[in-house]
């Protein structure tokens, strides 16, 4: 796998529904992110198509089902499949979530936040080491959104994430809408939560949108559903991130449905580029003043 480009980049998550428009507008996209699980069972022609796509535009592979952040060991069969896909596609990098998706033989069906404890830090570190051995490289690891304050936790999100990132050596994929949703849902300032993350290890960023849900008498919470535009506050966090870190950032906008006209998605990409540019200007001014 290669290292990331030396400049900030903005791209989009590949979705079959967007395929034609993406291919028509490849020149407007610096990078594409592909969901690995959509391709691990593909035939030779699928793999060849994805490999061809990766030659036309840098491709990142994004896993959603390994469940690396658990005191239970990662499934070797799934890791082998990821390894084969990485070998076939030769992406720039691969990524996975700091989540568990199954335990005790039960499939949850989506990303769940594990208890933030020393036990799950240790489990995540063992699973990341195993992933590195099997796939050949560590994944970029992503913070997830959660609607439930992770039960039985003894560490806060910043400490837990930092412990895994620091001790594994894995780079971080920072999902700013996940971070924003967790901050609002559990009473933290988004900027404060962002600053608690290991920002020096962040080189990949996800942006997405969500909606407020409040069934029955329950308190409203922000659901990260990938079905809505990226809110302005999240672009604001991206600007602050670009101001805070020196390393180049690759930003991916994730959209899983409720698709607007493709021009509207391109406009969201432009907003991301603008936020990055503003942040970099502020960083340059900071550096100049400090000199």
């Amino acid at each position, binding site marked *: 796998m290669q290292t990331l480009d030396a400049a900030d980049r903005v791209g989009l998550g590949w*979705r*079959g*529904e967007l*395929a*034609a428009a993406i*291919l028509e507008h490849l020149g407007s996209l610096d990078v594409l992110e592909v*969901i690995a*699980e*959509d*391709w691990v069972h*593909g035939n030779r*022609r*699928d793999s*060849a*198509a*994805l490999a*061809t*796509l990766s030659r036309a535009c840098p491709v990142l592979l994004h896993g959603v089902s390994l469940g690396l952040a*658990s*005191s*239970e060991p990662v499934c070797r069969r799934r890791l082998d499949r990821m390894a084969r896909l990485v070998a076939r596609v030769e992406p720039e990098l691969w990524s996975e979530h700091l989540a*568990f998706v*199954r*335990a*005790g*033989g*039960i*499939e*949850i*069906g*989506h990303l*769940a936040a*594990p*208890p933030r404890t020393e*036990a*799950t830090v240790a489990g995540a570190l063992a699973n990341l080491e195993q992933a590195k051995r099997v796939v050949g490289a560590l994944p970029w690891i992503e913070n997830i959104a*959660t*609607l*439930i*304050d992770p*039960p*039985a936790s003894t560490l806060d999100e910043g400490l837990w994430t930092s412990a895994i990132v620091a001790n594994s050596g894995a780079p971080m994929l920072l999902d700013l809408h996940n971070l924003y949703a967790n901050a609002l*849902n559990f009473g933290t300032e988004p900027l404060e939560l962002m600053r608690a993350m290991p920002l020096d290890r962040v080189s990949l960023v996800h942006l997405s949108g969500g909606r407020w*849900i409040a*069934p029955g008498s*329950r*308190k409203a*919470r922000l*659901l990260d559903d990938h079905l809505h535009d990226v809110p302005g506050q999240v672009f604001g966090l991206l600007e602050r991130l670009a101001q805070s870190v020196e390393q180049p950032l690759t930003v991916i906008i994730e959209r*899983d*449905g409720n698709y607007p006209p493709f021009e509207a998605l391109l406009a969201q990409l432009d907003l991301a580029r603008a936020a990055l540019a503003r942040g970099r200007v502020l960083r340059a001014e900071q550096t100049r003043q400090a000199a």
Partner: protein
Amino acid sequence: MKPVSLEAFLARLYTDASLRAAFLADPVAVARGAGVDEDAACSLDRIDRDGLELAAESFARKRAARRANRRRLPAWLRGLFGR
């Protein structure tokens, strides 16, 4: 009783509505009865109840929707790129 990991118990809670109802009526006893160790079982007394229901509903929706949401490259594009 065979001990179970906390994640294994949470996976059951997130996917089994009847277990969830019993748990919310008496969290510590149900967790103990499932084999969760004593410290973790006691900590579940303070579980985020609204969050548990919301998360379980969200996971159920995701399980139902996931296969429909993402598609491979359409056949006509595979033909274009996959040779």
